[in-house]
């Protein structure tokens, strides 16, 4: 019986549902337009908060880049600020030295941060779990300390002062209201999101999920696991670098806090609040975190970070998977 089955490869005339589901998974769904509609609407609805809006968009890009490695490839890290800061300082240093064109500044930041990803990834990605967490932390601390000590290049603890950035496309000047900053950050976030989305649905992206689910099995099906991990680490590093460069260009200042542990840890918290490995966790988690921070800081100016802590504990105990996890369970419940 099995013998006769082994010879056959014909499939039914109508594609089974399982095939259809898998081969159409990458198609855009209407709901995916929602974050972009919301972002465009807030440009018109909150004209006084565009500078803050740009910061949120930049944080979303940073969290999105983290999702690629943490959510999809399962690479845990507490040092993603190394790439964010690398990008910020690259764009900043170029600007201080007269290279003020913003888009080439972003590309240079992406190249620098990506290179850092390849070089450090080659070493740290040989480990997993807790050792990996520690090594990413070490890399970030080392980069931060270099930036701190190398006054001549980075301005040390004072940061990079007196940066000027040329208008985007030579047309859109960075204004005090943050209109250009907002539009610029939104456009860059959109392009990066398109890239990340393409990657997670590509064969490469699916193999990352395979590595997260079971690296031993990936080795056994002949996947070059270390190469894949380094590749995605470098891509995520580049995107984090672009986020850092966006912050540098829109604020026209780069300081050591772009490389801080708080930034590395904060972005992990934001992503977990939203939900990892979902592509949209960053879009929900970042505003959620910033809103909570804002509200808590207003009510408890001294103890607001304790409130964030309580929120995190609540998520870890009662809402695994973050906001998306809750959504899943709610829709399950309704469907029953």
């Amino acid at each position, binding site marked *: *019986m*099995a*013998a006769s*089955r*082994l010879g*056959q*490869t*014909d*499939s039914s005339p109508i*594609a*089974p*549902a*399982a*095939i259809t*589901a*898998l*081969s*159409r*998974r*990458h198609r855009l769904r209407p709901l995916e337009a929602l974050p972009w509609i919301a972002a465009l609407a807030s440009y018109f609805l909150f004209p006084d908060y565009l500078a803050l809006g740009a910061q949120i968009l930049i944080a979303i890009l940073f969290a999105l880049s983290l999702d690629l490695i943490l959510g999809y490839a399962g690479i845990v890290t507490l040092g993603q600020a190394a790439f964010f800061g690398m990008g910020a300082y690259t764009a900043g240093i170029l600007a201080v030295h007269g290279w003020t064109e913003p888009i080439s500044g972003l590309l240079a930041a992406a190249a620098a941060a990506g290179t850092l990803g390849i070089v450090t990834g080659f070493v740290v990605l040989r480990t997993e779990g807790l050792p990996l967490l520690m090594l990413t932390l070490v890399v970030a601390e080392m980069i931060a300390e270099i930036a701190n000590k190398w006054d001549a290049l980075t301005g040390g603890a004072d940061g990079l002062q007196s940066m000027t950035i040329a208008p985007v496309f030579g047309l859109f000047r960075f204004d005090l209201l943050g209109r250009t900053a907002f539009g610029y950050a939104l456009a860059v976030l959109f392009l990066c999101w398109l890239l990340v989305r*393409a*990657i997670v*649905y*590509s*064969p*490469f*992206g*699916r*193999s990352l*999920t*395979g590595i997260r*689910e*079971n690296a*031993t*099995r990936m*080795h*056994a*099906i*002949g*996947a*070059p*696991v270390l190469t894949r991990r380094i590749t995605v680490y470098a891509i995520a590093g580049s995107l984090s670098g672009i986020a850092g460069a966006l912050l540098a260009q829109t604020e026209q200042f780069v300081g050591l806090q772009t490389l801080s542990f708080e930034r590395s840890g904060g972005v992990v918290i934001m992503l977990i609040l939203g939900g990892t490995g979902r592509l949209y966790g960053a879009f929900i988690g970042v505003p959620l975190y910033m809103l909570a921070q804002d509200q808590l800081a207003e009510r408890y100016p001294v103890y607001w970070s304790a409130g964030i802590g309580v929120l995190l504990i609540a998520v870890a105990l009662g809402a695994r998977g973050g906001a998306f996890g809750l959504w899943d369970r709610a829709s399950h419940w309704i469907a029953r």
Partner: protein
Amino acid sequence: MTAPAIETRGLRKNFGALMVANGIDFALEAGARHALIGPNGAGKTTFVNLVSGALSPSAGRILLGGEDVTRLTQAPRVKRGLVRTFQITMLFRGLSVLENVALAIGEHAGLAGDLLRPAGTRSGVVERAYAMLERLDLADDAARPVRELPYGRQRLVEIAVALGLEPRVLLLDEPAAGVPGDESGIIIETIESLPADIAVLIIEHDMDLVFRFAQRITVLVQGSVLMEGTPAEIADDPRVREIYLGERAR
């Protein structure tokens, strides 16, 4: 004469003072049906790990179709047609059965390095994965996550993933281990109906299966080959009866 599908020469592996492979000379002929037996702790799985490249040997050489692959990592060995299964199911538990097989087929087709085009649209990978599931009677479970399947079905997915890699040499590490009797039939059937040009090395404790399936048997004891021969020779050997078969009968 064609080179053996797999050959090991003086293969040695120690973890500190613990010698788990002690100079193993072994050959798996092309298209062979060969079984590796031995008591628990004899080093059978270690041998599979060494041959597949999951472990690197302390000494000795591994040849695949006459080519020295001792220094190669797992991935290039798989590309050369050397595929293994695991004693304890090693699957992507959160992914669907179909995607488990599709990942293997995509990897084998060399598509998995592709960064930008959607996976679902690539040159019939999903269709080929589904055809594989149909061959192994797994199509009804195609869309279910592997972790929801009974263990016997998971073992079958393990074999589907291996076959998706189009092996020339298949190392089966206790394919029916932990499978209830009524579910093991399809697994045994599948193994027995593997294409004749695939060389198969099976590690198994079920002696009925071993003696029914294998043309040759190698007995491994404490990291060394005790003897090799036809099933009849193995069954008649007093040392084997004492060390292995006797022990099992107790």
